[in-house]
């Protein structure tokens, strides 16, 4: 196969209409416009999907369906039929016209139709591309804004003079504290830790998502605080939409564990 390997998986999804990432979609369609090998591979992949469709062959439509179709055909207005050949033959019957101009007229008619079809297809694909471009631009603007915000937070956290300060009640000594922000929809967890006990080299703090369903805790990443006991972690869960009733933290060997090792060192307040 001489299609481009970087588009191989996207092409297979595209053949089924299952590619939903606007950037991937726009990149692939732009590439298809200029790559004959990938277009041929797409045709072959469509044929593969056709085999899948054929696997459902078996049940037959009810007998009335045939009659319904034939009645509908009979009711179709004939004027809508497009038939360039008939147009050319109709012209031939005019005796005073010699064969050469008739052939030219016929060819012109066929060319016009072909050109018109090309133009129509180009216009459609242009409209589609335009819409995709606008989508990509708006996604890009949003991503840039998010990125700028994330960069500001990161720059602040990493600034040489960054001064993390936790305010507590006057009579309480500084306590280890972890703040988490979790989005179930995005499957993402942001964690900020302060005043944690420093760990030996071969240990880390591992975070556990406690599923709302009451199931076994799921690993939600790990981190190692700096010498002052402060740390920050951003973690993407393997999938989105996991309802959580909270998070807990244990001390684990570097590299993380499959299941938490007791005791739990940090858990939700209250």
């Amino acid at each position, binding site marked *: 196969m001489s299609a481009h390997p970087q588009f191989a998986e996207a*092409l297979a999804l595209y053949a089924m209409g299952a590619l939903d990432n606007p950037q991937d979609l726009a990149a692939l369609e732009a590439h298809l416009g200029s790559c004959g090998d990938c277009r041929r591979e797409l*045709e072959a992949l469509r*044929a593969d999907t056709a085999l899948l*469709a054929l696997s459902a062959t078996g049940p037959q439509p009810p007998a009335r369906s045939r009659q319904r179709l*034939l009645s509908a055909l009979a009711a179709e207005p004939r004027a809508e039929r497009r038939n360039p050949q008939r147009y050319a033959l109709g012209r031939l019957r005019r005796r005073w016209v010699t064969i050469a101009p008739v052939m030219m007229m016929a060819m012109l008619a066929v060319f016009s139709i072909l050109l018109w079809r090309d133009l129509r297809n180009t216009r459609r694909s242009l409209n589609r591309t335009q819409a995709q471009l606008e989508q990509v631009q708006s996604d890009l603007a949003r991503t840039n804004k998010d990125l700028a915000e994330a960069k500001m937070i990161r720059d602040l956290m990493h600034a040489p003079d960054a001064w993390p300060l936790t305010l507590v009640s006057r009579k309480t000594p500084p306590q280890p504290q972890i703040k988490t922000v979790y989005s179930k929809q995005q499957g993402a967890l942001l964690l900020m830790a302060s005043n944690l006990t420093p760990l030996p080299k071969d240990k880390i703090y591992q975070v556990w998502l406690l599923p709302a369903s009451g199931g076994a805790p799921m690993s939600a990443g790990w981190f190692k605080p700096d010498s002052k006991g402060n740390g920050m972690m951003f973690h993407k869960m393997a999938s989105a939409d996991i309802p959580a009733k909270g998070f807990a933290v244990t001390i684990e060997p570097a590299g993380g564990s499959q299941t938490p090792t007791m005791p739990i060192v940090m858990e939700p307040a209250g």
Partner: protein
Amino acid sequence: MIARIRAGEQSAMADLYDRYAGVVYGVALRVLTSTAAAEDVVQEVFLQLWRNPQAFNADRGRLAPWLAVIARNRAIDLLRKRPPEDDIDEMPISTGVNLEDEASQKLVVDKVRGVLGGLPQDQRKALEMAFFEGMTHSEIAGKTGDPLGTVKTRIRTGLLALRKVLA
């Protein structure tokens, strides 16, 4: 047969229906699971071919796989309540598989079912969710909990497995 349809012969449509209605109905029923809705897809697909036989380009593929894919796409549009494409655009499908007579079509269908049955369950499920349920790869990943990359790979290797056996 297509030439006769282009010439406006209704009897050619009747022949075409007798030959391929099972293919169109089968896939539409599998997607929509409703006999009435599947029947509507059969009507639409054949009527559109009657109105615009140029959409099928005999040089670029064969009729049975083309009809099967058109029927699947229309059924998915209905399933997902999307407006239909206004026309069945020319959609090249290149296959050397012979499906034109009933016996060879049955042979191909049996082989495809055999290959599908032999695929790992996760892979078959991903293919079916994409093709018969019209789910995108992100939706499949969300539902199965598998990483996006895994879903993409499963779909592609599943399709290629079908092609290899029939090559």
